[in-house]
């Protein structure tokens, strides 16, 4: 990275701090680790509740309703109450279910999301672990999610659940390809697999606009494919309520249902955050090449706020989609992936390679 990035933005992750502290004191290192784990766990719980509340409120106003209004000011504690209710609810495991897998499935789903969260650079100082193959890691561990869904659907011993799980399996695996192709475009641009470096590589401008349209196509591809991966409308066919009652989690109740539910919302955050990191510069402020004055003004806003703002906008966009569109049919979904997104993705990847090869984007840094 050349001089555009200043060293104050050099990300220092919790894992690094732990590693640095280790020679001095084991307890310090352990403290950092506990901080990381507890931090992520608390973050998930709070974020999940926040997102659910936001979704309900936003959905309400999209639909000329008010949303939750009863618990606390404007229903602000509604999700807390709901969480409490879900925790206290009876956990029903169907008699004919494969009990072990039935219990395991929601844990897998949640695990996938937690592991991804650990590598997300949310700001230079809030970053649990900076893996040098971050992009590959994200692609790999998010597969836990589909494993959980498939297990859940299969172990429920319910044909509706199984249908939902099979739909989810087909859908998530198909769309993973497009998402990866779009991701590769960014990897090509930034020349690194490390997420923090991808962020830093956008110091001269976000990838979405710096590559003559290639970036925006990749952004759209990634966003659409990710929507499909997290089963949000218009791609919510695995749990399409009007078709499969609740799809793969039909037979789940209480806490285990809450796990699926939580994972769904955290996934939404992860998709938004990843998209922001890859294409919208993550915590990087809005910079235009060498315009130092403009860039300095943008730098006044702290990076954490930038990240939050971008993510929040994308989350809102996802919700907006959900409360506007009908859902696709199974075969249309597959057609969209294999006949539309995938060819575009390949063409875009080649175009990106050409752009990188000739150093053709705005404000080339190398």
């Amino acid at each position, binding site marked *: 990275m050349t001089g555009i990035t200043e060293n104050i933005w050099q990300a220092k992750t919790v894992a690094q701090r732990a590693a640095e502290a280790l020679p001095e004191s084991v307890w310090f290192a352990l403290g950092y680790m506990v901080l990381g784990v507890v931090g992520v766990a608390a973050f998930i719980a709070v974020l999940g509740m926040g997102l659910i509340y936001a979704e309900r409120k*936003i959905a*309400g*106003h*999209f*639909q*000329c*309703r*008010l949303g939750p*209004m009863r618990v606390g000011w404007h229903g602000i504690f509604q999700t807390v109450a709901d969480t409490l209710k879900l925790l206290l609810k009876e956990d029903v495991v169907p008699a004919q279910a494969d009990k072990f897998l039935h219990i395991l499935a929601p844990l897998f789903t949640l695990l996938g999301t937690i592991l991804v969260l650990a590598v997300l650079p949310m700001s230079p100082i809030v970053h649990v672990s900076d893996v040098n193959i971050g992009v590959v890691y994200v692609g790999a561990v998010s597969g836990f999610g589909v494993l959980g869904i498939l297990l859940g659907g299969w172990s429920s011993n319910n044909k509706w659940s199984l249908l939902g799980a099979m739909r989810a399996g087909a859908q998530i695996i198909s769309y993973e390809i497009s998402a990866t192709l779009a991701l590769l475009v960014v990897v090509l641009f930034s020349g690194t697999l490390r997420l923090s470096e991808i962020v830093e590589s956008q110091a001269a401008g976000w990838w979405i606009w710096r590559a003559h349209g290639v970036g925006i196509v990749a952004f759209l591809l990634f966003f659409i494919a990710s929507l499909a991966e997290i089963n949000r409308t218009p791609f919510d066919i695995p749990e399409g309520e009007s078709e499969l009652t609740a799809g793969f989690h039909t037979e789940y109740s209480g806490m285990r249902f809450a796990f699926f539910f939580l994972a769904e919302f955290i996934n939404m955050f992860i998709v938004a955050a990843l998209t922001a990191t890859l294409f919208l510069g993550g915590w990087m402020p809005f910079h235009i090449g060498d315009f130092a004055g403009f860039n300095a003004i943008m730098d006044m806003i702290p990076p954490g706020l930038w990240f939050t703002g971008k993510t929040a906008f994308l989350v809102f966009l996802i919700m*907006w*989609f959900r*409360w*506007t*569109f009908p859902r696709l049919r199974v075969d249309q979904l597959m057609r969209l992936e294999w006949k*539309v997104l995938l060819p575009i993705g390949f063409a875009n990847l080649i175009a990106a390679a050409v752009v990188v090869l000739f150093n053709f984007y705005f404000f080339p840094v190398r």
Partner: protein
Amino acid sequence: MMQATDKQENPTRSGLVTAPELKRHGFFRNVFSGIKSLLEGMKVTFHYLSHPSTVVTQQYPENRATLKMMERYRALLTMIHDENGLHKCTGCQICHDNCPNASINVVTRSNPVSGKKELDRYIWRMDSCTFCNLCVQVCPFGVLKMDGSFEGAVYDRRLFVFTLNHYAGPAAGLLAKVADPEERKKMIEPRDRYSGPVPLNGQELAGVKALKKAESGCCGGSGGCCSDSQGSQGSKEMK
């Protein structure tokens, strides 16, 4: 994409409107018109998000003070009592006969003084009532009306069977002819909501078990305290 709003008049048959056909175009036109249609839809929903004044939710029960039911709303059958607490029911039982599902039971008695037939109890079964309004319509004296007080929920469906008239005795018109106030008093006997042959008073009805008689006092007119039907049944059996 063809705009669905285009009306395509069919020239062959007059007075007919034919649905427009959805046409397919080339790949790129499909993609772009498709994206455009999605954005238009998003504009509609965003309009409502950005205009909180379009919210139609009513915050019940907070808005109780301002919530007004329409005057004709049919929620509760009531017997009209005038300012002196007198009704005009003669106990003719036309409503009783016209009720489609026997939700009205008009019990008559002969007056202790004059010996004439008159209303004893007007028992209404709200639980089986369909609010068809026939009783109100057929009443030749305009005794009944449907009231808009819709908050009728109770914890025990036996509380849905109750008496409408406030007193047993002759109708207002007949009573007016009796000059002597002492005589009048003798002719009337007060009736409360949960007295007579209702489950709360130890009577069984079709499909409704009786409540223990001792409990009827505590329920009074408000209802609600007899929520545990199983419990009261159990205590009855123990006796």
